C-alpha cells in the first residue's frame, strides 16, 4: 500500500469496527479527499458517517468536539496543516482541555488528520510543519508517521485513543519514500518493504519511537520525511548513525532516546520546521538534561530556516541530505 492507501485502510478498519467513528472534512465525502485518503469510504459507510464539510476549520474541529462529547469518535481532516490555524482556539482551548476542566465529565476522543511538510513546491501555505505549536499544548497528542505500515497502525491507535490526537501526515511521503534527492526519480511504496501493509486490524502503539537504522557513532532524532533524508545522509557519508524515528512527538518515547544517546555520546536533531522554538529545541533540552555526562559534542540541529516556506528556493530551504551529512560530520569531529 501507499501511505494514502494505508491511511484509508486504517479509517476503513476503524469504521467497520466501531459505529461511533465518523469521518468528515473539506472534500472528504463524495470526492474522497484531495489526496484520495478517504476515497470510497462514503460509498461504503453512507453519508451519515462520511461527509463533506463547509470550508471552516474551527467549524470542523468544533463540531467534532461536540460529537465527541456526545460519544462519537470523529476522525476529521484539515486539508493542509497550513490551514489548521483558524481551528487553533478549538484545539487548544477546548479539545485539549475538556477532560481536565470538566474533571473527566466530558472528553474529546477525536483525531485531527492533516497533511504537512514541504519538498513539493507547495510554497508558503502548502508546506508548513506546525508540530511545535501542538506539542506545546498540554492535553494533546501529536503524531507523525514516516511510512505506510506505521501510518496505518498509528492512525488506528490515534482513533482508538481517548485523548485528542493531532495526526500529521507528510504529504511528500504519500506516494513513496523521499530522501531529499529531488533530482532523482521517486521510488513508489510498492517497491519498498515498508509498503507492505496488512489488510486488517493492527496497531502501532503511541508514545513508542522506532529505531529506523541502528548505529553506534551518533544518534539522530527525526520524524516524517526527515527520517529518509537522514538515512540517505548517513549512508552517503559512510556514518554509522543510529536514526530514531520518533513517530509520537508528544508525549514521546524518552527512554529510547536517552538509551541511544548514552550509547553514542552524540546527537543531531533534524526537522523540516523552522528552527527557533521548533520542536527540536525541546528535544535538545531533553537530551541535554538526561544525557549531559555522556555527551561528547554539542547537540546539533538541522532544520528549516527561520523564514516562511519559499517557492522557488525550495531546495535551499528544505534540509536535504547534504546539509544533514555536514552536521553529522561536524558532530563526529567535535
Amino acid at each position: 500500500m501507499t501511505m494514502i492507501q494505508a491511511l484509508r485502510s486504517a479509517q476503513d478498519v476503524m469504521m467497520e469496527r466501531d459505529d461511533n467513528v465518523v469521518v468528515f472534512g473539506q472534500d472528504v465525502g463524495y470526492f474522497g479527499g484531495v489526496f484520495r485518503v478517504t476515497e470510497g469510504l462514503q460509498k461504503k459507510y453512507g453519508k451519515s458517517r462520511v461527509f463533506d464539510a463547509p470550508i471552516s476549520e474551527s467549524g470542523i474541529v468544533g463540531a467534532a468536539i461536540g460529537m465527541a462529547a456526545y460519544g462519537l469518535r470523529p476522525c476529521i481532516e484539515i486539508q493542509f496543516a497550513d490551514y489548521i490555524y483558524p481551528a487553533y482556539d478549538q484545539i487548544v482551548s477546548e479539545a485539549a482541555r475538556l477532560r481536565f476542566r470538566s474533571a473527566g465529565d466530558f472528553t474529546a476522543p477525536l483525531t485531527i488528520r492533516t497533511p504537512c511538510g514541504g519538498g513539493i513546491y507547495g510554497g508558503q501555505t502548502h508546506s508548513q510543519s506546525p508540530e511545535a505549536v501542538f506539542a506545546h499544548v498540554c492535553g494533546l497528542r501529536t503524531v507523525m508517521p514516516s511510512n505506510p505500515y506505521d501510518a496505518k497502525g498509528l492512525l488506528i491507535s490515534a482513533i482508538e485513543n481517548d485523548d485528542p490526537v493531532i495526526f500529521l501526515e507528510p504529504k511528500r511521503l504519500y506516494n513513496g519514500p523521499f530522501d531529499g534527492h529531488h533530482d532523482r526519480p521517486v521510488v513508489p511504496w510498492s517497491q519498498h518493504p515498508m509498503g507492505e501493509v496488512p489488510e486488517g486490524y493492527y496497531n502501532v502503539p503511541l508514545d513508542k519511537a522506532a529505531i529506523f537504522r541502528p548505529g553506534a557513532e551518533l544518534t539522530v532524532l527525526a520524524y516524517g520525511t526527515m527520517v529518509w533524508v537522514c538515512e540517505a545522509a548517513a549512508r552517503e557519508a559512510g556514518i554509522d548513525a543510529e536514526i530514531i524515528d520518533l513517530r509520537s512527538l508528544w508525549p514521546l518515547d524518552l527512554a529510547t532516546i536517552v538509551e541511544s544517546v548514552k550509547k553514542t555520546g552524540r546527537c543531531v536533531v533534524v526537522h523540516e520546521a523552522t528552527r527557533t522554538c521548533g520542536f527540536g529545541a525541546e528535544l535538545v533540552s531533553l537530551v541535554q538534561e538526561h544525557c549531559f555526562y555522556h555527551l561528547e559534542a554539542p547537540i546539533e540541529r538541522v532544520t528549516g530556516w527561520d523564514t516562511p516556506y519559499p517557492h522557488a528556493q525550495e531546495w535551499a530551504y528544505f534540509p536535504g541530505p547534504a546539509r544533514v551529512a555536514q552536521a553529522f560530520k561536524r558532530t563526529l569531529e567535535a
Partner: protein
Amino acid sequence: MSKDQALRLHVPEPTGRPGCATDFSYLRVSPAGSVRKPPVDVLPMDTRDIAYSLVRVLDDDGNAVGQWAPELSIDQMRAGLRTMLQTRIFDARMLTAQRQKKMSFYMQSLGEEAIGTAQALALRPDDMCFPTYRQQSILLQRGYPMVDMICQLMSNERDPLKGRQLPVMYSVKEKGFFSISGNLATQYIQAVGWAMASAIKGDTRIASAWIGDGATAEADFDTGLTFAHVYSAPVILNVVNNQWAISTFQAIAGGENTTFAARGVGCGIASLRVDGNDFLAVYAASCWAAERARNNLGPTLIEWVTYRAGPHSTSDDPSKYRPADEWNSFPLGDPIGRLKRHLITLGAWSEKEHEETHKALEAEVIAAQKEAEQYGTLATGHVFSPAQMFEDVYKDMPEHLRVQRQQLGI
C-alpha cells in the same frame, strides 16, 4: 467636477452614558400578542418578519394574550417562578460571599432568570445544553443541588471540578449542562456538533446552544449557524441579547439598525425575536423550536431581548459606562415581577405566598452555603491536593507528568 467628501469612520455609541438616560426606542418593542405564530414547519425565509419584531405574551396588566400564549399549567408556572426567585437569591448570596472573600469571583444573571428557566422547562432533561457563564438558572431548574454549585464556586474539597476551574464554570453532564469554557462562543459550534451526533445516531435528543450578544461577533457564532443550517442540525441556537458585553453596547457587536435574529434568517435558519423577560413567551418559543428540532425540521435561532441588570461580573463597575438606574427604564421590565403579576391575576399566587417563598428559598440558599463551607473555601485552603492537577490532562498520566508531580514533592 465634484469633490469627493472625506470618508468618516462610524463608531456606534449607546444613547445612555453615566448621568444621562438611555433612549430604548432602538428596541422596537411590539405590543404583547401582536406577533403571529407560524407553523413549526415554516420555511426559514418566511420567519423574516418575526426576526425583526418581538414575540410577547404577557401584557402590561399581566394577561397572557395572542397566538404564542402557551398551554402551561399553574404548577409549571409556579415552579418557574420559584426557580427564577431561587436563581436571583442564589446570585445575591454568592455576590455577598465573593465580597466576603469566600470565593474569588462571581457572575450574576440578574434580570435574565426567565430565559434559562423557561427553556429548561421546555426541554427534556436529557437534551444537552451548551451554556455560557450566565445560564445558572438551567442548572437550578433541572434540580442540581446548590451545595454542589457552591462547592465549585469555593473550589473546596468537594468541588466536582477539583479546583481546576474558575468559579461559575460549572460542568454537570448528568444534568445536560456542558462544561463551561472561558473562551467565548466555542460552545456554539460544539452544540451543533452534538446535535449532528444525535442525528447521526438516530437519537431523539436535541441540543440547546447559548451565546451572548457580544460573543456573536466571534467567528464560532457564524460557524455554528452555517453548520446548523447545512446539516439541518436539531439544535436551538439561543442568543441572549442583554444589551451589554461588559462595557460594550450591543450596537458595537453589530446590533445597530438590525437584530441578531435576522442573522439566522440570513443563514437560512428559522428565527424568532422574543421578549426574554416574558416567561410565557420564552417557554412558548422554546417549545416551538424544540418541536421543530425533534421533527427533523432543522435548527431555530432565538434572540432573547433582555437586559443585564447587574454588573458583568464581580470585577466590573457598570456605573463607569452606563446610567446607574438603566434597568428601571428598560421597557421589558423584570421577568420575576411580570410572571408574579400574571399568576396573581390568575388567582394562583399572592404577595404573601411570594414573600413566604422568598424567605424559604433564602433559608435554603443559606443552608446550602453553610453546608458547602463545611468542606472549606478557597480562603481556608481546604482545596484539592496539588497532586490532582496532573490528573485528567490525559486519560492516563504520561511519564513526563508523573515526573513533574514527583518534582512537586507529592
